[in-house]
């Protein structure tokens, strides 16, 4: 018998062959083994340090990748004597493994991967135990490996509140990439924020199977508007659907950076991220020898993630209501992700009185009631 | 050979060319070497204004090669080309045509899927960049009138007869302003009336002060049309003669280098079919379509007999191709039956016919009988790769394959420097010889030979005919397609006349009425009626 729905539960078989297949080429003596990084994970002199950044998109995207690139620029300013490596547009294929290995071959001291490459990156880090790896939005940790992300669900909930207030029909549209936890969390937070002020709020999601596909995003945005949505949100590395919204006179909220110039009238706000401080800090630790693996880091609201300044057409009462929620989060530690929460099929998933913790939010993989178009 | 001597010989002969004028083209000491073979060895060749100059030689003598050197397809390894007295070298046929020299090749080079008008305007500097289909058709019509060559501008090449294709090729070079026209075996694919039309056009062309180089193996024709004749043997020029005063046997002797018998009488078949044996093949009420899906054969009733040559007479385009393909299993039947040695064939299948001992010399060797880009060995074993020794189970024994290729080349009397070379590098006649030998080997019961002597030199025609006779005498049923009634009457035991896809009548060759057959070929009976 096999379990079609949940293959991941299958017993994990280790291959005898993997262990047996010890380095054939390495044993010939023909090949110089590559240097596995510079010394132990102890302190590194600034001039000896090599800091590497691998990105999923182009650094000119004015979105996700450019925020990480800004981080690199800040680190460079803080440690000008170190050497920097940066590769953009790394595909989610074995090319990712090749690319990160190339960083190792270049004696990288600390490698930031600004997207989750999973096994493809683990393949490299496992064999470079003396190089420090940090994977954004990652899931595994090791002695030389930590992951980091932002609690984007907090500002997203605030954006949801604004959306709920600004939407007349209560029909919200969401341009998604893949049905993965970051997207579930974002969609759910948005829907819950909206619903808290607008009981008839629903969110329709369209996934375009890419993080960076301006054309796909425009098409999805148009389809959502054609379907009756009067507020757009999404999780894209660029600003394409904002232009669609601007043309149609519909408000839209964005991700990553302030992109209001692409749609000054439509722009509501953005779930902005800022890695500069975090990257400088991690690099400083690595140089000082105090960097550690096995860390799971989620930057909180106000420290790396927040809503952007409100757009010109956002009414005063909307700003005030939404900001009141934000203040409550910052001041009182308000966690809006509390039971009772039903999934999109109407089943109670979080009982009344229960609260979702950060890890539950980070790994969220079902859609809440009111969300359509996101496979659970 | 001294030019002065030739001029004195020319004295008094009444052709248009002025013997004292400098030749328009003069090839001096042209040598062309291919790996393992000298195709042209220090050849001199002159073309005067206003003459038709024939180029003769056995298969592989180097005729096509010499003309390919002149038109820039090949570069000579030694020697000089003088055009109007100026040393010249063409690096492409396009450049040669730019200088007024155009060549019509042994194998046409038209694009099958294009129309006549498109082919004529293709790659021509004078074709306007933007032009409608109608405009190029109109332009083609005007050109056709100007040069007196009947073509249909809107017809696609694969729809028209060989004769018309040739007129298109000629029109193509004339339109580009050729004053020297080179024709490589132009009449091989023409019906006699088409050939007469061609000759008329060539004489007109010459009358305007232009020149023609004419390559042919048909000596009568050469004597009838040409003013002077150059003869090549094994790459060397061996003679230059005025046509007046030559005879076919003089020419044949010069080509071969020894006396040749041009015709010999052939005794009738000694073979006595065993009366109890079923005929090797019978066609019963067979009909078939042509490539365009139109009826090509209707109600064919034909019985082949062991030890007999059955001639199929008729003007090309009356179903010959389809009939030869039906007889060899290549073309499916639309109706009727084929009975091979008493067994009804369920469906046409060339492999089955091959296994039944039916050989096939196709009318168009390069298109259907050979894979031009593959080696001579690959092409030689095309019919026998399924049986030992070439086949060893599912494998091919390359040693046996090479041995078989050598054997076939030897029987066909074709000298081959390298068996690995693509078969397209062989001369046209040598390709034909190889195909014919290859097919005769498997023809244990029937040989279907469509124009088997096409492209062969005089000696090779004799050899070919001897082989056909020998096959017949050994009890094989030979079906021979030919347009030359005389050839058929001389060789065949029975003659069937094919007209518009029907058999008009079958005659015993002995005592056949040539006039009646000729009329039937045109679709008429002796009493002047048309047959439906």
């Amino acid at each position, binding site marked *: 018998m096999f379990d079609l729905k949940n293959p*991941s539960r299958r017993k994990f078989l280790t291959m005898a062959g993997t262990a047996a297949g010890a380095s054939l080429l390495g044993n010939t003596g023909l090949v110089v083994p590559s240097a596995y990084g510079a010394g132990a994970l102890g302190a590194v002199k600034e001039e000896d340090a090599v800091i590497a950044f691998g990105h999923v998109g182009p650094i000119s995207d004015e979105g996700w990748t450019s925020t990480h690139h800004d981080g690199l620029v800040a680190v460079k300013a803080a440690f000008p004597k170190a050497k920097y490596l940066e590769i953009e547009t790394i595909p989610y294929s074995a090319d990712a493994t*090749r690319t990160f290995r190339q960083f190792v071959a270049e004696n990288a001291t600390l490698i930031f991967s600004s997207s989750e490459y999973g096994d493809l990156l683990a393949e490299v880090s496992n064999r470079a135990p003396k190089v420090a790896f940090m994977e954004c939005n990652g899931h595994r940790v090791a002695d030389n490996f930590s992951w980091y992300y932002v609690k984007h669900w907090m500002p997203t909930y605030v954006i949801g509140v604004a959306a709920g207030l600004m939407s007349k029909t209560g029909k919200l549209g969401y341009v998604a990439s893949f049905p993965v936890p970051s997207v579930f969390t974002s969609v759910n937070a948005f829907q819950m924020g909206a619903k808290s002020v607008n009981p008839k709020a629903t969110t329709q999601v369209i996934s375009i199977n890419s993080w960076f596909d301006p054309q796909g995003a425009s098409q999805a945005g148009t389809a959502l508007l054609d379907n009756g949505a009067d507020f757009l949100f999404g999780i894209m590395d660029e600003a394409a659907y904002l232009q669609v919204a601007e043309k149609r006179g519909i408000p839209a909220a964005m991700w990553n950076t302030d992109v209001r110039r692409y749609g000054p009238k439509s722009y509501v706000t953005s779930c902005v991220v800022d890695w500069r401080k975090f990257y400088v800090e991690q690099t400083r630790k690595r140089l000082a020898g105090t960097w550690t693996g096995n860390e799971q880091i989620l930057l909180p609201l106000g420290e790396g993630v927040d809503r952007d300044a409100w757009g010109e057409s956002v009414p005063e009462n909307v700003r005030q209501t939404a900001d009141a929620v934000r203040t409550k989060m910052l001041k009182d530690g308000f966690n809006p992700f509390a039971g009772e929460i039903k999934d999109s099929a109407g089943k109670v998933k979080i009982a009344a009185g229960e609260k979702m913790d950060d890890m539950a939010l980070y790994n969220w993989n079902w859609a809440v009631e009111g969300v359509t178009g996101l496979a659970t | 050979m001294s030019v002065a001597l030739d001029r004195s010989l020319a004295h008094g002969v009444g052709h248009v060319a002025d013997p004292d004028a400098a030749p328009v083209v003069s090839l001096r000491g042209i040598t062309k070497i291919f790996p393992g073979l000298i195709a042209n060895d220090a050849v001199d060749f002159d073309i005067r204004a206003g003459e038709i100059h024939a180029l003769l030689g056995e298969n592989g003598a180097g005729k096509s090669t010499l003309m390919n050197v002149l038109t820039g397809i090949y570069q000579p390894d030694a020697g000089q080309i003088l055009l109007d007295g100026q040393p010249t070298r063409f690096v492409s046929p396009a450049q040669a045509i730019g200088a007024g020299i155009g060549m019509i090749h042994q194998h046409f080079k038209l694009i099958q899927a294009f129309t006549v008008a498109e082919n004529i305007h293709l790659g021509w500097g004078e074709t306007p960049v933007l032009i409608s289909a109608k405009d190029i058709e109109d332009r083609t019509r005007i050109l056709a009138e100007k040069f007196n060559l009947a073509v249909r501008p809107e017809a696609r090449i694969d729809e028209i007869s060989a004769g018309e294709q040739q007129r298109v090729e000629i029109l193509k070079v004339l339109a580009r302003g050729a004053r020297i026209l080179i024709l490589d075996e132009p009449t091989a694919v023409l019906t006699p009336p088409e050939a007469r039309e061609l000759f008329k056009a060539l004489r007109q062309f010459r009358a305007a002060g232009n020149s023609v180089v004419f390559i042919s193996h048909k000596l009568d024709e050469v004597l009838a049309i040409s003013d002077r004749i150059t003869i090549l043997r094994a790459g060397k020029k061996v003679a230059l003669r005025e046509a007046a005063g030559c005879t076919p046997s003089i020419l044949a002797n010069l080509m071969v280098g020894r006396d040749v018998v041009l015709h010999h009488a052939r005794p009738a078949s000694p073979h006595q079919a065993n009366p109890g044996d079923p005929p090797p093949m019978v066609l019963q009420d067979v009909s078939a379509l042509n490539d365009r899906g139109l009826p090509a054969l209707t109600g064919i009733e034909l019985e082949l007999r062991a030890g007999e040559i059955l001639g199929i007479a008729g003007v090309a385009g009356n179903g010959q191709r389809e009939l030869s393909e039906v007889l060899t299993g290549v073309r499916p039947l639309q109706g009727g039956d084929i009975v091979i040695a008493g067994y009804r064939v369920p469906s046409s299948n060339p492999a089955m016919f091959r296994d039944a001992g039916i050989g096939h010399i196709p009318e168009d060797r390069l298109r259907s009988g050979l894979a031009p880009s593959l080696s001579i060995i690959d092409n030689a074993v095309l019919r026998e790769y399924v049986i030992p020794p070439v086949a060893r189970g599912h494998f091919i024994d390359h040693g046996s394959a090479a041995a078989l290729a050598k054997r076939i080349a030897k029987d066909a009397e074709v000298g081959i420097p390298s068996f690995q070379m693509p078969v397209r590098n062989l001369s046209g006649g040598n390709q034909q010889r190889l195909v014919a030998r290859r097919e005769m080997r498997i023809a244990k019961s029937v040989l279907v030979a469509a124009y088997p002597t096409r492209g062969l030199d005089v000696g090779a025609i004799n050899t070919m005919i001897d082989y056909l006779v020998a096959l017949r005498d050994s009890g094989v049923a030979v079906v021979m397609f030919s347009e030359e009634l005389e050839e058929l009457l001389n060789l065949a035991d029975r003659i069937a006349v094919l007209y518009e896809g029907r058999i008009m009548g079958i005659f015993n060759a002995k005592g056949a009425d040539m006039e009646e057959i000729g009329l039937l070929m045109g679709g008429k009976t002796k009493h002047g009626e048309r047959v439906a």
Partner: protein
Amino acid sequence: MAFRLQRLPSVRPEIAVAAHAVAIGLAFVVGGIAVTISGHNAFTLAAKVLTASFGSEFGLEDFGLLFGPLMLTGLAAAVTLRIGLWNIGAEGQFYIGAVFATGVGLFFSGPPWLMLTAMFLAGGIGGALWILVPTLARAYANVNEIITTLLLNFVAVLVVNYLSTGLWRDRKQSVLGATARIPYEVPNLSGSLHAGILVAVAAVVLMALLIRYTRWGYEVRISGANIFAAHYAGIPVRSRLISVMLISGAIAGIAGMLEVAGTVHRLQGGISNNFGYLGIIVAVLAGGSPIGVVFSGFVMAVILNAGIILQAQGILLNDVLAMTGLILFFTAIGEQVAHYRIVATHVVAQEA
């Protein structure tokens, strides 16, 4: 006196090889000038590419991981060229081969050798199935295979996306839909270089032998060189065409199986790395010859590997892509240039 190019009817092999070498050399010179202009030292970069590709364990592994699939997809495209057809769909067959292999690996269990054999067969079957419709359409209705195989590539990508982000999704990965990790892995030879490269070499050699030494191969060659002659000779052209296309699809599918079970270990979008499309270039550069695929696959792997190394040296992706394109362009025209030679001429026609 003038100089003109003359086209030769056929090319000697040594000239063709030399033309390719010169073309690649030329592309490197142009690439070198480009990187020099952009402020890098071309020689240190070249040295870097060589040492990084062939001087380190990682580099060699990476090279091998590119070389294997390129040989297979190149072979897939090359075999159809032998019979005069184009399989533009190796990309799709690669994906579907990966899908089939993943399905077997995720939902069945057994001893690794058995499971890997089953996945291998499933990959081949998947690839063959994916080319089945274009094959039959070509064989029985004469529908152009270029278009049908190409279109199915896009369908294959959708199938993979559907499975990896939907039905077979592993809920742990954050940024990209992917299935769970397949618990059966192609054994590694060295580091992460898995045995797929041996399969690729074996496939190339086997195919070369089949084409040269079997009746089937002979029939395929004749059919590819002149389909009329093949039919005339009694070769079952249609069934040869079908077998060649299905074998081609199966090879591409096996490439997909090896990639998913040997390199990526999860089915997810984008794993093909464009190997299917690159295979067409590999096959064309190889002139349709299986053994030639080894050489052109090698060149292609060096080029792709160099692309990554150069990016690590701070050359921007777009510049790298431009250079890769340039090299491919030069090698492709090198093939054509070999058909020409320069001759000195007197052009009388122009004087007249």
